[in-house]
């Protein structure tokens, strides 16, 4: 780190962050100088003239003359001696010293006017005991002690529960195991037990001396505090659309990354595992994708730090890896996740808010005795499905069939050729899927220690996570340690810190495309053995001249090559909260996010890619440092029926990324792999880059509440960003929201059914700065070329400048309501939104005469609108409890305008004005040509060269000619009509059971995987469907063409499939052990199953697929995607 801080470029940020820190120190000193509260009472002057008066009466007289109240336990004032006093204008302190010290009585000011008396040598009175305000207190000093234990819904002791004598300030809190002891001064008192997140309960004491209480969680949850950008609000005061999920939901699933756990849990959030490889990439869209070429990913803010997710280090050819940078964050450390969806909530993040914001809050220490928590689970994963592929016999026979169809001699079984063995002699051959799939274990261990006093709270945790992939050799390992501290330095100053250090190892296989490990396994012939006759890995698919494509041996690739991504992340911040005045607090924080990764790739000559070059290795590194300074003021003020909460702040963030990459070929020895690529005889040109960005922001928010039921929020942020062109450095992002708590109006207040009703309306503008770096500048790129056989450096203009470049802008209107019925047993939240994104960044094509083909400009717009609904209900309450949470979200996406043309093509999709992005575009399959006569009769409706057995396509434009280019149409979209999730939780005594369903409806998948396996050219292995059902003269088919070599038609409706699915995502059963010893506070064991059943008509491995992970306009392409696993887990949670 010192390397970075010595850099001049970074230094100025340090300078600006140090200045406010000096102020923190200054303020701290000021607050130390100030007296602790209440001491001034003792300086009050008093005059007393009393004769032969009992001590008790003396104290009572002092109470009357001054504004203090005495409090003491019975037994403190034991003797009945009488005193005579003559005091003239002395301080109360000296008076008390005179009369109490000789009697072995201590005094202590508790609150501003309360003085507690204790007897020296006897144990102190518990400090929590505060005297009644009434002076009657010591007139009737009856004592009654009550003890007991407060437990939670699971029977575990609840520490920190507040117990208050009704109508008084007297009370106590429970200790670390939930025990309490309270001295009461009268009979028939009523005790109130309350704890955040639980329903408060009242009990009449009578004469009992023991009272055990079990608190129930508060399902009403309106007092729940929701974290929003730069602050937190009570849920009842929220005006924006914010969804929240807690540790319980996060814990329910064995996932490597927290964003996976959002799937199906929150309305409006679509989560797709793009790669199911351990630590693999995830596509998240909050209320649809806003952008065509800029980022569509939400902003992730972890404990107030907006993190960036830089691309991992580069690797050599054929090593595609869609790593998920957020897998470097340990999900077990997370307390809650809030998802900010509407502009009212996200505008505070300005130019980064348009795609929604995910706020992650990690766990912090709580006051009370130290608690040690230990979580462990062990899981076993298995692929959910295998495809039914042809056997070696069938595949070689199909090659012969193809050759016959093309009027060539058969290749297999030709005694004079290279392959004299008949197809039948090949038998079943190699089942390549079996060879590359494995049963894979996963395990997770989390140990945390937390606790604290009112001065210092802490949590320290360590985590180890290890997941093998269901494809051989893939693995993800993570080690995390974390510490967070909160210290109350003085009445005015609180400081805290939060540090996480992670190291992760991602041992991956090439995940996507026809050369991915799965692609190789499906394409290679089953007639090819794993090992050749000499015992080495079989290199060529079957052998030279086999007629099968050059497909590498997947087992050789997996087992002899290395593809390792090592990442280190340090995410840390320190902050100080200073109480400047009544209601006014300043928070200054500085933080850093360092993410360094390194990728080592090595291919031995046992793999096709490195066979002719004698070993191929690469090292890539990526070092990323992000610095943040935030200076935030918050102010709260109420008078009469008006309440104001204001936030204002200035933040600075900067980032530097350094990347290097080198590769080499021709290794004399393979044992060292890529660890020392200098060993290679043929180093290839290495590359490197450094880039930086900076963001200066000024933000503000005002919450205004009138009569506690009319709520108004106004937010604004000005962002200055280095990414934008010189003419547009600053952007302003405002929003406003209004909410009305209808249920607090008189006409609904006492309604029997409606317990909560809030209407919300918001509008605002947010930006998207995910436009890459330096895009507004001209660029001259360097690379190399050859003269003769000599490499020389060359430089070419590679980008034309656009000084007008700026952020994409999204305006969003949201209208919603929160409704609670039947005492909030049924809660409903619904939102309607419409988002319009303008100034879309598009590569605008330039005439080639400019010397460039395109320039990035802000043109075009698109729209997302939708409805979200979520329901929470307690269906049955009591000993047996049944709760249901469900959500469903509909989003419609439409392109409104583009530049120049009204459409453009990318891959298999079209982006067209009036249509949704992600629309597949291609020819429409219309069966198979059956006879030569039919083809002749069809004339130009058939393609030239069509024979019986060829695919027939529709002439869509009706011009009587089938033309591959003009007879295309939209074949459906990869975006779903709606997505949903449903959780049912049942609890009975110590048992809990949950079932979580999740799914999508109405999305299409382009099954590229099947395309290669059903294209009827047996150069790749075929699906059994082709073997059995291909068109043959004697056995015609109207769905599959004959086994030949047909001209490729690009995208074709035949491979578009319905991607809707309903998945039993998770089922879990837990049991709270009745084990409660001196050490063990709580113990729970559970078993769970993940991805148990999927109901779908999709024919590939899994309908949850998005191989074009990085694309904003292609969704739902299955290009040999790493398949999903079914996982069984058992685990335990122990608290000590």
């Amino acid at each position: 780190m010192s390397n970075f801080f010595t850099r001049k470029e970074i230094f100025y940020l340090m300078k600006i962050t140090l200045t406010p820190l000096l102020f923190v120190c200054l303020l701290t000193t000021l607050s130390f100088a100030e007296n602790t509260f209440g001491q001034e009472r003792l300086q009050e002057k008093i005059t007393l003239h009393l004769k032969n008066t009992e001590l008790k009466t003396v104290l009572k007289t002092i109470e009357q003359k001054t504004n203090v109240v005495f409090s003491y336990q019975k037994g403190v004032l034991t003797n009945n001696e009488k005193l005579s006093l003559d005091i003239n204008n002395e301080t109360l302190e000296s008076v008390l010293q005179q009369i109490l010290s000789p009697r072995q009585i201590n005094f202590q000011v508790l609150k501003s006017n309360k003085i507690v008396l204790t007897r020296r040598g006897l144990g102190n009175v518990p400090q929590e005991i505060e005297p009644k305000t009434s002076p009657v207190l010591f007139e009737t000093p009856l004592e009654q002690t009550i003890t007991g234990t407060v437990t939670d819904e699971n029977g575990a002791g609840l520490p920190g529960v507040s117990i208050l004598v009704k109508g008084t300030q007297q009370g106590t809190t429970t200790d670390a195991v939930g025990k309490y002891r309270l001295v009461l001064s009268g009979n028939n008192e009523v005790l109130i037990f309350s704890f955040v997140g639980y329903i408060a309960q009242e009990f009449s004491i009578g004469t009992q001396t023991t009272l055990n209480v079990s608190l129930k969680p508060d399902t009403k949850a309106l007092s729940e505090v929701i974290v929003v950008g730069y602050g937190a609000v009570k849920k009842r005061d929220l005006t924006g659309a914010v969804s929240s999920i807690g540790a319980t939901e996060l814990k329910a699933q064995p996932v490597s990354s927290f964003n996976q756990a959002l799937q199906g849990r929150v309305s409006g959030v679509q989560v797709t595992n793009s790669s199911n490889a351990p630590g693999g990439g995830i596509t998240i869209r909050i209320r649809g994708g806003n952008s065509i070429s800029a980022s569509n990913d939400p902003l992730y803010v972890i404990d107030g730090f907006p993190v960036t997710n830089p691309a991992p280090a580069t690797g050599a050819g054929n090593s595609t890896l869609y790593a998920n940078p957020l897998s470097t964050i340990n999900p077990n450390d997370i307390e809650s996740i809030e998802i900010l969806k509407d502009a009212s909530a996200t505008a505070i993040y300005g130019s980064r808010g348009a795609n929604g914001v995910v706020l992650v809050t990690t766990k912090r220490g709580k006051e009370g005795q130290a608690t040690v928590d230990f979580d462990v689970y062990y899981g076993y994963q298995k692929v959910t499905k295998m495809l039914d592929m042809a056997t070696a016999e069938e595949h070689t026979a199909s090659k012969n069939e193809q050759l016959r169809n093309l009027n060539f001699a058969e290749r297999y079984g030709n005694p004079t050729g290279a392959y004299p063995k008949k197809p039948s002699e090949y038998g079943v051959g190699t089942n390549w899927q079996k060879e590359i799939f494995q049963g894979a274990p996963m395990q997770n261990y989390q140990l945390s220690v937390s606790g604290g006093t009112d001065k210092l709270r802490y949590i320290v945790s360590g985590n180890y996570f290890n997941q093998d992939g269901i494809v051989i050799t893939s693995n993800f390992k993570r080690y995390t340690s974390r510490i967070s501290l909160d210290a109350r330095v003085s009445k005015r100053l609180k400081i805290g810190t939060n540090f996480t250090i992670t190291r992760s190892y991602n041992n991956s296989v090439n995940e996507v495309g026809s050369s991915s490990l799965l692609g190789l396994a499906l394409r290679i012939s089953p007639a090819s053995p794993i090992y050749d006759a000499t015992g080495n890995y079989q290199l060529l698919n079957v052998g030279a001249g086999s007629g099968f494509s050059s497909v590498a041996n997947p087992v050789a690739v997996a087992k002899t090559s290395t593809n390792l991504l090592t990442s280190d992340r340090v995410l840390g911040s320190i902050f100080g909260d200073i109480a400047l005045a009544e209601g006014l607090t300043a928070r200054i924080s500085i933080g850093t996010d360092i993410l360094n990764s390194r990728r080592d790739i090595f291919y031995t000559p046992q793999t096709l890619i490195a066979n002719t070059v004698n070993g191929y290795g690469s090292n890539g590194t990526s070092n990323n440092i992000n610095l943040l300074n935030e200076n935030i003021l918050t102010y709260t003020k109420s008078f009469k029926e008006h309440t104001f909460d204001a936030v204002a702040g200035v933040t600075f963030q900067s980032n530097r990324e350094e990347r290097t990459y080198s590769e080499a070929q021709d290794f004399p020895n393979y044992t060292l792999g890529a660890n020392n690529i200098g060993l290679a005889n043929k180093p290839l040109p290495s590359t490197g880059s450094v880039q930086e960005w900076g963001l200066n922001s000024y933000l503000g928010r005002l919450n205004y509440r009138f009569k506690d039921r009319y709520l108004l929020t106004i937010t604004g942020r000005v962002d200055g960003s280095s990414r934008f062109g010189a003419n547009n450095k600053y952007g302003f992002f405002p929003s406003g929201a209004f909410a009305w708590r209808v249920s607090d109006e008189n006409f609904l207040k006492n309604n029997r059914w409606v317990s909560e009703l809030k209407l919300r309306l918001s509008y605002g503008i947010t930006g998207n700065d995910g436009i890459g770096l330096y895009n507004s500048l001209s660029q001259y790129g360097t690379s190399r070329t050859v003269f003769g056989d000599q490499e020389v450096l060359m430089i070419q203009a590679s980008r034309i400048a656009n000084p007008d470049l700026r952020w994409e802008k999204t305006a969003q209107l949201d209208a919603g309501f929160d409704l609670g019925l039947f005492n909030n047993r049924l809660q409903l939240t619904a939102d309607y939104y419409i988002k319009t994104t303008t100034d879309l960044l598009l590569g605008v094509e330039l005439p080639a005469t400019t010397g460039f083909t395109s320039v990035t400009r802000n043109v075009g717009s698109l729209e997302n609108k939708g409805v979200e609904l979520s329901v929470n209900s307690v269906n049955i309450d009591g000993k047996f409890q049944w709760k249901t949470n469900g959500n469903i979200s509909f989003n419609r996406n439409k392109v409104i305008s583009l530049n120049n043309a009204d459409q453009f093509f990318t891959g298999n999709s079209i982006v067209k004005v009036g249509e949704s992005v992600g629309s597949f575009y291609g020819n429409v399959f219309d069966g198979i040509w059956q006879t030569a006569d039919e083809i002749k009769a069809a004339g130009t409706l058939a393609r030239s060269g069509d024979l019986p057995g060829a695919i027939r396509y529709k002439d869509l434009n009706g011009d009587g000619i089938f033309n591959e280019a003009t007879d295309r149409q939209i074949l459906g979209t990869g975006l779903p009509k709606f997505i949903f999730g449903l959780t049912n939780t049942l609890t009975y005594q110590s048992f809990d059971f949950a079932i979580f369903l999740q799914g999508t409806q109405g999305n299409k998948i382009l099954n590229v995987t099947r395309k290669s396996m059903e294209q009827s050219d047996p150069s790749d292995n075929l699906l059994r469907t082709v073997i059995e059902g291909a068109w043959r003269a004697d056995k015609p088919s109207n769905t599959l063409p004959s086994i030949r070599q047909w001209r490729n038609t690009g995208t074709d409706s035949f491979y578009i499939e319905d991607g809707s699915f309903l998945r039993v995502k998770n089922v879990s059963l837990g049991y709270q052990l009745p084990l409660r010893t001196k050490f063990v506070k709580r113990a729970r064991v559970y078993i769970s199953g993940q991805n148990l059943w999927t109901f779908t008509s999709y024919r590939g491995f899994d309908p949850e697929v998005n191989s074009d992970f990085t694309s904003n306009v292609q969704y739902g392409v299955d290009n040999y995607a790493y398949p999903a696993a079914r996982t069984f887990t058992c685990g335990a949670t122990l608290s000590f």
Partner: protein
Amino acid sequence: MKNTTLLSALLTVFLLTACEKNLEEVPLSFFEESNSFNSAADATSAINGVYDRLKNVYGMTMINLADLNSDECEVREDNGSGDEIHKNLFNSGTSLFDGFYTNSYVLIDRANRVIANVPKITMDTKLRDQIVGEAKFLRALAYFNLVRAFGNIPLVTSVSNDVINVQIPREPAEKVYQQIISDLQEAEKTLPVKYTVASENGRATIGAAKSILAKVYLTRKDWANAASKAKEVIDSKTYALVPDFKDVFLPEKENGAEHIFSIQYSCVLPAYGSPMAVNFSIYFSYPINLTGGSYQVVPQHAASYLSGDLRKDVTVIYEKKIANGTVVASRTGPHLDKYWDPQACGSQSARNNFLVIRYADVLLMYAEALNELSGPTTEAYTAINTVRARARKTPTDLKDFSNLTQTQLREAIWQERSWELCFEGHRRWDLLRTGKYIEKMKKIGINAEEKHLLYPIPIQEMDVNPALVQNPGY
């Protein structure tokens, strides 16, 4: 009050220190327009970048434009897009044209940037002038290809960084030719006779400029200038025919006596390799690519060779004996052997250079220009007979020409060009300038009309540049 003062002090400090520097965007690992041309090394790197663009307009692009769309080259029918080019079934959306057009103008822009910026650099003036000359040579070459392919075309000779006002109309071909001629004449003045360092193999020389200029004149039927430029090249004695025709194409013998200007490909890295071998071979030599290319020789051309013509065996083959002794036979027709490389370096790359112009071409141009100028002269016969002499097995096989009429010699030269220079990116241009295109295409059964004499302006360009007018018939 104390707090308010503190607060404002605090805020003031924040705002003052909110340094604008955080928002400056200074590229740390690439150059901008403003700092790209500072030294002699920058000038060299920039001209290297222009040369590199040649690979985008030659290679298979030029084969497709000039050979596939002719009576010499065809593709197997499973190569649908190639078949469209060969059979005149293309349209303005055919991607070949967009790629060729775009890359030609990118090359021209990069050359314009050298011509505009390099003279401002403080450096050795000889080298500076030479680099500017190279840029002019390359710009002329690009325009020459464009004007032959499309006719009238936009003429850009300066650098503009405007991204809004980008509509440029087509200029008459005549005007473009004037620019080409003037660029080549200027290049001639500053280019060296030859380069001595291996890392300069492939740079433009005075001979290259003169040879291309001869071809420009020939195309414009400016026989006198064509003859005189060709003569200058011949008289320079810098070049000679290599004795064995086969050696003209061997990667081991590249940049030899006969090679006037070739685009450099190499197997130093697969990325620097050329694509011709894989597209033409019966069996591609790269160890793990077991299939051959789809480009073949038109059977009529294969059959046209006279017996005893050594060039036939190098040009047309039906089978190939590969390293392990196996004989691979073509199932679908004659293949080309000019681009065979037994040491290919990647599944798509081999070492073969692309020969833009070689000495045999100059000799044939000289013969043609003289014949047009003043009928069959001795010098004209000498030129063509030199080329024939190398091609024959025995002196009786391809006899020296003599006693022909002007027309007979003209036909003989044209035929000789076909045998000598086929598949080297010349045929369509030769057919066009000799007016034989439609006749020859019809002869092999391909529909050819007036409109096919020019290629269509790519639709992508028509879309973004409304100032363009499409060629008739498209």
